[in-house]
């Protein structure tokens, strides 16, 4: 019997969804801050930082959505770091393997990220932000998007909280949500 696991299904389904999104937007970015290519690169990086296994990885729980929301909010100050870092990682990928980061195998992506983590790559792409600083920045933010509160746009369905065995918190109506400013719980649903 051709057994389709839940995980395979989700992977196929999300690939299809991503494909249709590209088609419908004619290459225009679906993101608030990222370009389409930047979003894909950031997604690929985060998925290696927190990869899918028996539990979903960063890509599936919306870590890039979290990053994108924060980059038009409290993380505005990190915009140029992301612009330069996401460009820089492609340059380093090309130098190491002749391809963009998103085109590499998972093993090669990990090798590139390890180079960044130890601050190896210098070169033209890492003039404004060092490769090591960019790695630390996106690692911290990816962890926030994956393990933080879903109200900020990541950790869809509280996937990571279920994974670590944290009981569902009781939801007590509107009391936990600040509807008076942009930090509120409905932000993730607005543009």
């Amino acid at each position, binding site marked *: 019997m051709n057994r389709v696991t839940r995980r395979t299904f989700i992977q196929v389904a999300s690939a299809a969804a991503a494909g249709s999104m590209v088609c419908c937007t004619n290459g225009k970015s679906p993101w608030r801050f990222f370009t389409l290519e930047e979003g894909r690169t950031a997604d690929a990086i985060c998925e290696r930082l927190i990869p899918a*296994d028996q539990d979903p990885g960063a890509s599936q729980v919306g870590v890039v959505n979290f990053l994108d929301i924060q980059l038009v909010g409290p993380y505005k100050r990190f915009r140029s770091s992301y612009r330069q870092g996401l460009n820089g990682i492609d340059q380093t990928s090309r130098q190491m393997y002749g391809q963009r980061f998103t085109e590499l195998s998972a093993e090669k992506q990990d090798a590139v990220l390890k180079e960044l983590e130890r601050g190896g790559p210098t070169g033209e792409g890492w003039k404004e932000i060092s490769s090591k600083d960019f790695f630390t920045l996106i690692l911290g933010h990816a962890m926030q998007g994956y393990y933080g509160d879903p109200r900020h746009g990541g950790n869809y369905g509280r996937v990571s909280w279920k994974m670590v065995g944290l009981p569902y918190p009781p939801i007590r109506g509107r009391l936990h949500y600040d509807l008076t400013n942009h930090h509120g719980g409905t932000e993730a649903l607005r543009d």
Partner: protein
Amino acid sequence: MVMKRVNAVVVGAGAGGGIVAKELAEAGLSVVLLERGKWYTAFDCRKDDLRNQRTSVLGASFGPDDERYRRVFVDPQGHERVVLPSDGVYGNNAACVGGGTASYGAMAWRYMEKDFRMRSTYGTVANSTLDDWPISYADLEPFYEKAEWEIGVSGDDSGNPFRAPRKKPLPMPPLPPGREHAILKPAAQRLGLHPFDIPMLRNSVPYNGRAACMRCRWCVGFACEVDAKNGTQNTVIPKALASGNCELRAECVVKEILTDHRGRAIGVAYFDSQDRLEMQPADLVVASCGATETARLLLNSQSNLFPQGLGNRNDWVGRNLQGHGYAGAFGLFADDVYDDIGPGASIAICDYNHGNPGMVGGGALCNEFIRLPIHFSSMTPPNLPRWGKAHKDFMRQAYRRTAVVMGPAQEMPMFDSRVQVDPRVKDFWGIPVVRLSGSNHPHTVELGKMLSAKADAWLKEAGAVSTWPRPPRVGLSGGQHQAGTCRMGNDPKTSVVNRYCQVHDVDNLFVVDGSVHVNNGGFNPVLTIMAIAYYASAHMVGEWKGTRFRG
């Protein structure tokens, strides 16, 4: 605009200022209490793990905000940069009515007798301004008791043989022990240590008309959803207002303390919630802004008579900035230790606060408040990759099986660890901002390493299958435990205020907050700040007699 003159203006509605306002108002003085932040309620507890006072990556929920506030941070290499409240090195404490007490962990420690006599006990320490206080534990004892009963403390320190003598027990029993407590207590006893229930400014039973703690997992860094955590915002400040003699003005940012041609304080200039510059005249001015902002306020209050700022003739304002670097250990157990019963922290030992061979001072050790997953993601062992499959596996397997024991290493004050005002950078209102520089004393780091080793041994005895250290902080201290910048002393040449918290050369100006601490102890400082506020208020009321501080 010039407001109606009052007897006292108190700047800052935190642990110190809230108490002073209440004590003066109840004694019949007219009081204006100014606070730069808002007055939040229990409904403002958002339980947002990325936006709170402990994890402020997306902002500090109880202020200050990233839009209007900034500081300059100078690193040990001399590189300086402008930092925002959500940056760690800003050294933030909350900006709201209640100050840090609205969202703190609420440990309620009395310092020990030796903490007031560090130099007499240990002698001098190289490169440190370690000294004795001009007051003793016995001077503060009645006021510690007053804080415990008026603000409300639960716990039981009768099992702590090292505690300083107390006349009355705590008003509330401890919360029932959780799983970590049950594992750690017999382990400590097997090691010959003396575990006991941490005193906490938290209702374990209904008290003062508010309910008991409901044991949720969002405590330190958050306001209490059921208002069971006791701060000045839900105890003394409402009492001050109820007296009819106190007006609380929130969202008012004080620019400077004003003085007359004789060098006496005459009031404060502040920006109100519409950013209009106002002047509040007063017979008596009390600065209770926390160790960083009080120093800034005094330094920004310059005039012909005080060209270096108030209280600063001998260049001691802003010096000796202290806080606490926490050090300890993580322990991974074979089975779950997580029980989802807050606040988490409940058991402590004071065996290592003093009497450590070859060392000066020490620190308490406690099990830690509940770690939310985002905290735990950066608490993994040093030999484990910080990312990838191995990190995720560890999160999945270890989250519920890890306990943490740590404590505040007592800091050796450093003259060059300091708050200045920056000559160039200004905040939203055009007021020169704080400039932070300096480092932690090497002996403080040694104390942290000692605490880390003791925590490790405790966790191992409790059955941890593997342990790893939480190393002590090396950089500049401050933050929520900030203290020391307006030292209390008998000699005006080496201190800023006298034994009654009165600025040496301005007798109607008082500093009442952690700034006056000569040493910050090996404990969370808030109960000492509260006790000093009651103590200093008693002096002000006793001296007042209707006109004492009038010009």
